[in-house]
């Protein structure tokens, strides 16, 4: 007995009417009308376009955009103590921190030291959020702003002052459940 050949069991399957016959013509005509109905439904439903420069796509609250540095709300002191853990955690090596000692008449942060230089190179940042996770004082968090384009690369190295300040425009948020 010869081994089983799957090809012997194969049969022709014709789904729907034969093309070319009367039934096929009916199906083609019906399909055309269905297509016309589908496109007309789009007119009735209206456009779904978001007119970008005027309207912005809302992002989720967890969206990782432009970084923010924070201050204590009561004292106004910076939360960052210049520990460089964020720079160590950064896979893109885009954070540069130079720490300096706080003195009684020049108290910048709440700890012993503060970040004299805190720069993030936005052309390199991959927005992974590891800096936020690494920070022991929640001094750096990821914001929601995604409009970071600029004309010069040098303008994309964000300094401490830029990161501490409020972003010039706020990105609309959407609710978590949407």
């Amino acid at each position, binding site marked *: 007995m010869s081994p089983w050949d799957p090809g012997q069991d194969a049969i022709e399957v014709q789904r729907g009417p034969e093309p070319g016959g009367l039934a096929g013509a009916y199906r083609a005509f019906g399909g055309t009308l269905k*297509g016309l109905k589908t*496109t007309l439904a*789009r007119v009735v439903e209206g*456009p*779904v*376009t978001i007119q970008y420069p005027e309207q912005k796509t809302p992002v989720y609250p967890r969206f990782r955009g432009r970084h923010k540095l924070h201050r204590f709300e009561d004292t106004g002191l910076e939360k960052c103590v210049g520990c460089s853990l964020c720079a160590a955690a950064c896979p893109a090596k885009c954070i540069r921190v130079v720490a300096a000692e706080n003195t009684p008449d020049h108290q910048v942060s709440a700890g012993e030291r503060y970040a004299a230089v805190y720069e993030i190179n936005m052309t390199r940042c991959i927005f992974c959020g590891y800096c936020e996770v690494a920070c022991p004082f929640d001094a750096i968090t990821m914001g929601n702003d995604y409009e970071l384009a600029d004309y010069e690369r040098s303008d994309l190295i964000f300094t401490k002052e830029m990161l501490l300040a409020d972003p010039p425009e706020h990105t609309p948020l959407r609710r978590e459940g949407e």
Partner: protein
Amino acid sequence: MIETTLVQIVKSIVIFAVVLGIAPLIVVLERKLLGRFQARYGPNRVGPRGLLQPMADVMKLFSKEQFSPATSVPWMMALAPVITITTAVATLALIPFGPFDAWGGNFGLYGIDVSIGLLYFFAFGSLAFYGLMLGGWASGSKFSFLGAMRSAAQLISYEVALGLSLLGVVMTAGSLSLVDIVEAQGDIWYIVPQFVGFLVFMVAGFAETARAPFDLPEADAEIVAGYNTEYGGMRFGSFYLGEYIEIVIVSAIAAACFLGGWHGPGPIALAPLWMLVKIFAGVVFFIWVRATLPRLRYDQLMSFGWKWLLPLATVNVLVTAIFVAT
């Protein structure tokens, strides 16, 4: 005699002005509507609601270089868009917008009322394809050539069905003149007794205007832009304009032959309005179909034309002939 000549001149000017005014409107309408059919807005940046978009397009086209490839025949390339546009505008003279004394004057609301009306339409419709063919062939590029050949084959397949589909109307009305045909539809629009003819005419009309789903001559996904691959600037613009006038013409012929032309409720002075409304509906339908149907494969187009449209149109003519004779 002088007076009739003057009237003719005024009519020509009006027709030309209306056409050149209506074509950009249709362009913007098409782009807006296509957008809506695809759940987007379409152009809305130039001018109020994007209405000045065709102006910007024309400005751009005017500032472009007129390039002809080394292998082309430049004077033929320049001639082709002229043929397309001339034949298109010439056909517009036929479109009847109202009866002879619609506005009380001693003139009809149409360019000319020739006794061979529909034959004139077929003649110029076929001539318009020479523009496409000549342009494609004279461009000296393989894509243009393919587009030109396709338009020739398409013309042969569909012109016959187009003619036969209108033959039923001609037999029922007993005249080739479009004015007489519209006047014969006072009681009942021919779309009712000639429904099959209407369907065949619309399908063949899409092929005649070389628009989706029969836009094989310019099939941009397959052969770049077909016959107008090598065209740029206002020469391309002329082809484009010709295409839109062609849409108006086919819509107008459909309105006049099947949808009762200028007939509609209200006084006879409103006749041009009804005609315009019907033409507009036809144009919207053209855009709707373009937004819906994908392009046919080439062999599908041919077999559909010969195996379905032509027999259908023939049977329609035969049945009409039997009814008219009895």
